[in-house]
Structures are given as C-alpha cells and as structure tokens.
C-alpha cells in the first residue's frame, strides 16, 4: 500500500479542497479581527459572534426558522412513513408512477415551485403570506428525501419479522407500533433531522412565500447586500454551517446503523 500516491488519489484530495475550500474561508474570516474579509489575517477575535448574538432581528428569524423547521420535519416524516410502508410492503398497482411523482420536487427548479405556490396562494385562495405558506412549500420539498431515507430503511430489515407478529395474533396497528416502528426508528430520526436541515437552510421558497416574518436564510440574504454587516454575516454563516454539518453527520450515522443495505451511499 505504501508507495507513490496514485494520480486519482491526488485528484481526490484536490477535489476535496475545491469542495471545502471556499466554504472554509467563512469561519476563517469570521474569527479575523477586521471588518473586511481580506488577507492578510489581522488577529483572532470572537467579537463578531458576540455582536451576532446581540442582534435581535437575527434571533427572531432564527426562532422562526427553528419553528418552521421542526414543524416541517415532523409533518413530512409523519406523511412519509405510511407512504414508505405502502410502497415497500404492499403490492400496489401504479406504485412506480406514484413514487416517481413523489420524486418530482427534486427536479423542478425551486423557483417554479415558489411561483406556482405564490400564484395559488395570492390569486386563487387570497390568503396572506406567512410562515405557514413557507412551511407548506418546505413540506413538499422534503417529501422525496423523507421517502428515500424511510424506504431504504424499511427495505433494510426482514419483512418476516412483521409477518411473524401478524401470525402470532397482533393486529396491523400493534404490529406497526411494536415491530415496524422500533426497527424503522433510525430511519425515522434520520428523516426528521434531514428534513429539518432542508427547511432550515432553504432560501428560494422562503424568500417568495414569507410574509412579514423572515426565516434565517431570508434574513441572511438581506444582510449580504451591506458590506459593513459582513463580519456578523460571516459569523452567522459559520454557525449555520457548523450546526448543519453536525446534524448531517448524526443523521448519516443513524442511517447506517444496522442497515444491511447493498446500496452504500445510496440517497
């Protein structure tokens, strides 16, 4: 194994630097004692983080994002779980096309989803834009992810466990509660975490569909225009990056937990 590293290995390292490099500048500059994101670095400071925490409109939009994210992740997972059970445990006529339709939000540009929702909400339902309308858009966006995570978990364990429970006299509901749910739990938690991240980080739909209340990405976007707000923006951005990275790692580790899936790295 020891020897000259292969060209592909060097390429892979370069690829990782390209992937992480630009994003890593954000935490670097956020700790730099300067109001500009420029080299050479001046010195270490945490004052940008302190001023960020003192910013009430930021805290307010953070609260909004947390509320929407939690509500969306619970709703999308609660909708996704029975659907994933249906598509993995029942022989359904038209199951393929149904699953295909559920994956559509992955390939429709989010601006189209945003303007379509805007059209029906404002011109047909005559409703006010609010965090509720943002949440509705985010649930749609989360369904394909929640479905894929849950279906791969449900396919990862033996159906005969559920059959055994039914044969031993449990009804469908108790089988679900006592067998399916505990076995699917890592997938459920992973779906909750991933849907939360999607909603928490989503910008375009929130930007089009929010009323007077900002979510965190919408607030962040409004700050990007002001050069003098840059350090605070960098601190906020770094905090968001760190938080989502931790959640992703947790979700991925849960997803791998005990899944005997033959499809490593499958979405």
């Amino acid at each position, binding site marked *: 194994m020891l020897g000259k590293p292969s060209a592909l290995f060097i390429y892979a390292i370069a690829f990782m630097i390209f992937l992480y490099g630009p*994003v890593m500048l954000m935490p670097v500059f956020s700790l730099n004692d300067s109001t500009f994101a420029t080299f050479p670095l001046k010195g270490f400071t945490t004052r940008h983080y302190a001023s960020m925490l003192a910013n009430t409109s930021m805290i307010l939009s953070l609260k909004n994002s947390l509320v929407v994210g939690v509500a969306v992740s619970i709703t999308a997972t609660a909708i996704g779980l029975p659907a994933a059970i249906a598509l993995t445990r029942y022989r359904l006529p038209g199951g393929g096309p149904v699953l295909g339709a559920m994956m559509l939000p*992955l*390939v429709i540009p989010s601006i189209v989803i945003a303007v*379509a929702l805007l*059209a029906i909400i404002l011109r047909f339902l005559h409703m006010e834009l609010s965090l509720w309308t943002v949440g509705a858009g985010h649930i749609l966006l989360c369904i394909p992810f929640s*479905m894929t995570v849950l279906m791969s978990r449900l396919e990862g364990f033996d159906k005969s466990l559920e059959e055994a429970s039914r044969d031993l006299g449990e009804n469908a509901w108790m089988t679900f509660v006592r067998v399916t749910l505990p076995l699917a739990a890592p997938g459920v938690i992973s779906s909750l975490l991933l849907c939360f991240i999607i909603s928490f*980080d989503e910008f375009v739909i929130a930007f089009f569909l929010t009323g007077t209340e900002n979510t965190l990405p919408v607030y962040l976007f409004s700050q990007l225009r002001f050069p003098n707000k840059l350090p605070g923006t960098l601190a906020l*951005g770094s905090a968001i990056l760190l938080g989502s990275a931790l959640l992703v790692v947790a979700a991925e580790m849960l997803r791998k937990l005990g899944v005997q899936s033959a499809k490593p790295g499958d979405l």
Partner: protein
Amino acid sequence: MLSSPKPRRQWPDWLAGYALLSPALLVMAATLAAPVVALFVLSFWSQTGFDIDRTFTLANYWKLIEPSSEPMVWMGIPFPFAYPVAAILMLKSLVMSLVATVFVIAMAYPMAYFLAFRVTRHKALWIILLTIPFWTSYLLRVFAWKIVLGYNGAINTGLKSLGIIEAPLEFLLYNPIAVMITLAHAWIAFTVLPIYVSLEKIDRSLLEAATDLGDSRLKRFWRVTLPLSAPGTIAAALLVFIPTVGDYVTPTLVGGPGGTMIGTLMQELFLRQDNAPLGAALAIVMMAIIAGIVALFLWAVGYAKMRERSR
C-alpha cells in the same frame, strides 16, 4: 392438533396501500399539482394595474415571442423579438447551465471512480465528507464564492499581499463565468454519489472478463465501465441541469448585471414589476423548453436501452 388461525379481516392490498399513501398524495396534490394548475391558469390572464383581468388571453405567450423588425443583437446572435430579454435570458440560462453541468460531470466522475474502485479503507469517511456539502446551506455555498472572487475578496487580497498583483483583479466577480464556476461548485456535491452508486453496481467479473480477453485498462474503461455507468451519470447530469436553468440565488449574488439568468427575470416579474401572469407564462415556457430538451437528449442517447443493458 393445531387450530387453524382465525381468518383475519383484511383489506385488499391495494386499498390498504393507497389508504396509507393518501396523506402524502393529498399533500402532493395541494402543494404541487394544484399550484401548477393555478400557475397555468394565471398565465392566460392579464395584469391591469393592480388588478388581474380574468378573461382568457394568449397575450402573455404572445409577448414572449412577438416578433419585431429590429432584432436586438446579443453575442452576435440577432433576437428578432419585441421583448427580447426573455428569449436572450432563456438561451443564456440554458447555455450557462449546460456548461456548468458538463464541468460538474467531468469533475465528479473521476472522484466517483476513485471512490468506487480505489478506496478500500475509510470509505464511510469519504462518503460522509462528500455528503456534508450536499446538505449544507446552498445560499452560503454560493455566498462563499463572493468572498473568494470579490474585489476585496480572498484571491485578490491574497495575491496582493503575496506581491503578485498590485491592484485587485476586477474581472473575477459579477460575470457569467463567475456564475458558472459557482453553479458547478454548488451542485457538484449532488452528482458524485449517484455516479458512485452506478459504478459500484457494476459486476466486477465483467471487468475481469474484459481484461482476460485482452482489453487494455483504457479500452476496458471505454468499452465496459463507461457504458455501464452511463445511466447513473446521465441521471446525475439531469439532476444538475434542470434545477440550475432556473436558479435565482447564484446569478443574484455573483452574477452582477452581466450574469443575470431567467430566474432573475421571473423574480422581477412576480415580486417587483408585479406582472405575475407574464411571469407565470415565462415559468410555463421555461419548464416546457427544459422538458423538451431533456426528452430529446434522452431519446438521442438511447437512455431506455442503456438502462435495460446495465440492469
């Protein structure tokens, strides 16, 4: 003697299945199907000041293609339209997305190949490192490039403090190339894993057979690996191309006046100029053009047959 199990009262499979599916289907109908229908209907109405005139009209579609005798020339191409901005931005968005997609696939494929055929230890670590950017804020990944390429950005100030340049390079940010680099970077995380999965699925004995029958490594790659991984790679390419055509964040943050795309115009029509019906027509036309291009492409490369083969 064993008593036979009591016959369970059971719903037929399809009914039980669809009952379980119904919440998801209802949500999809309410948040996707109905809004798209609404968008379609809206595109046949017209905006009169602050009000919407609900009489059926094709005026919005006509506005998008209305010819004019004085063509506007963009990049040497004449656009003979009375409202040329839509056609110009449409073409520009398609070209920019296409270039970004080609770069993304060209960069992601070797990485996926490395992961599938070379990595033996710490594979899970590599996969998780490739997964994290996939999930983290798109907005921040795009914004990062503003810090890299900006007038007072990392490249300019870095080169300046190293004494390589004297004045900041102004051409880095706010142009179509900056948009394409940023798009490529922002979406590359979505492609490595699908390509990796399609490479991982390849039966290794096929590769051995090719070698045993005398193929060189390059020839083997060209004749076995590449064709068998093509369906996954094409799917990954579409997963980048389709959403990026309508991207709004990247052109807004790093595009400047020269790097605008069709998503920028759509946002203006809906939120600034308040001409939602025209914006709706634009969205419908954009989706139709994308769907047409994708269908044509899949037909041209024989995608259905390809999938059949690599199954």
